[in-house]
């Protein structure tokens, strides 16, 4: 075991002073750290510039590493696809025929739906994506659930905007650098999404549980409305998230709610799409709930 520097480094006055000033400096470091920490707990948005700059500096590294891993897994997966190709081909043909039939049905429903909507004169919001990027990393060392995506304010991303994938909702932006942003995932405890059950449309509240699952509770007290396999979609209440985006699928019931797993798995989705808030006025309001992030 190496000898400790010890309380007294000999008779050298200079070395003694050196130790003493080093001790004062570490005390100062502790004090500065506590002040910074209190500031970031009380007023998280005060560091948005620093955090944005840090994201810009670090996200390209994660992005490049991500490219490497997707290439490698793609090669392995691609080789695997050749194995048993004839069986796969036959199966895919069967599925394609089945999907073709479903598509014709769906087209009929779509046209009927358009006619009915025209009859009701529902105003259709035009929803153009702000930007689309890759999920390049996550906060795997922290109990908070964040993901890093490879688009930032240079593409128009702003704090508070909802992020989704083709499969379903991912979360909302809480830090925006110029080329990367940090997303508060729907599985984070601090992310509360107004939602409803797709079957029946009963309003529920979705809260992350911090371990990759989501807690869903009905807004009205009463009989537990959930069933295993229920799909939870956003309700559009609050105006931040667009309505009817799938969030999660119920896997287990508990006393008065249920546990669900997110439909869009951030580690699998190919693209994360940043959308403008459903009601543009919600962005100003969203800056307040977003401030509970760091």
């Amino acid at each position, binding site marked *: *075991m*190496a000898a*400790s*520097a*010890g309380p007294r480094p000999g008779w050298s006055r200079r070395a003694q002073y050196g130790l003493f000033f*080093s*001790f004062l*400096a*570490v*005390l*100062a*470091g*502790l004090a*500065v*750290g*506590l*002040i*910074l*920490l209190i*500031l*970031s*707990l009380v007023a*998280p948005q005060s*560091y948005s510039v*620093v*955090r944005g700059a*840090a994201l810009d500096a*670090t996200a390209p*590294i*994660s*992005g490049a*590493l991500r490219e490497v*891993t997707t290439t490698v897994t793609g090669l392995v997966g691609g080789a695997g696809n050749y194995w048993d190709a004839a069986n796969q081909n036959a199966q895919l043909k069967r599925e394609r025929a089945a999907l073709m039939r479903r598509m014709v049905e769906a087209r009929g429903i779509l046209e009927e739906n358009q006619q009915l909507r025209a009859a009701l004169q529902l105003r259709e919001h035009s929803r153009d994506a702000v930007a689309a990027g890759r*999920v390049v*990393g*996550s*906060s*795997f*060392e*922290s*109990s*908070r*659930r*964040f*993901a890093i995506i490879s688009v930032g304010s240079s593409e128009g991303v702003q704090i508070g905007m909802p992020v989704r994938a083709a499969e379903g909702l991912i979360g909302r932006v809480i*830090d925006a650098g110029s080329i990367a942003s*940090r997303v508060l995932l729907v*599985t*984070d*405890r*601090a992310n509360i999404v107004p939602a409803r059950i797709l079957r029946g449309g009963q309003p529920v509240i979705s809260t992350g*549980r*911090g*371990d*990759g699952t989501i807690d869903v509770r009905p807004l009205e007290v009463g009989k537990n409305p959930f069933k295993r396999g229920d799909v939870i979609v956003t309700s559009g209440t609050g105006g931040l998230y667009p309505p009817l985006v799938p969030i999660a699928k119920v896997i287990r019931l508990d006393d008065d709610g249920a546990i669900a797993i997110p439909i869009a*798995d*951030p*580690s699998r989705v190919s693209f994360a799409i940043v959308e403008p808030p459903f009601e543009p006025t919600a962005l100003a309001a969203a800056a307040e709930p977003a401030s*509970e992030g*760091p």
Partner: protein
Amino acid sequence: MVRSALGPQSARLNKGPRAGADYIPAATVVAGSLLALLPIVSATGWWPDFGLLMLLGWRLLRADAWPAWWAAPLGFVNDVIVGNPIGMSVAMWAAIMIALDILDRRTMWRDYWIEWAIATVVIALSEIAHWRAAGLMGADVPFNISAGPAILVGVLTFPIAAFIATRLDRWRLGR
């Protein structure tokens, strides 16, 4: 001396510390923080805090790996890279340096198990602080699915960090 210089294995002669030996420990702590940039998208946050593990590995190995106050800027780098609330690691790592300095004066002897026990306490306190800070920021997750597993994983991976610090120490000093 002369005989060994004439022998085939003279590699151990004239070997002092390597260039930049004073900065290698701090650099490895930053490298540990940079591991947070690996493209891992995880549903849970149970991975250990690699920067803290390297800091502990070095600090428990030797008290003069870096001047104690370097812990504060190293902590700032860790906060910014990992995405912690800024100030968390600054305060925590400075406090760890002070606490371990005090501990160095109190302990009469040290062995590997005592160091592991000290590391366990420090890692646990650190994870609990992160857990409480997350709770204050609106993410009040139960202990047994967030900080608990993270403490376990961190404590079990500490020996790896300690091993890396020991080997790097011998390498940087040219031993």
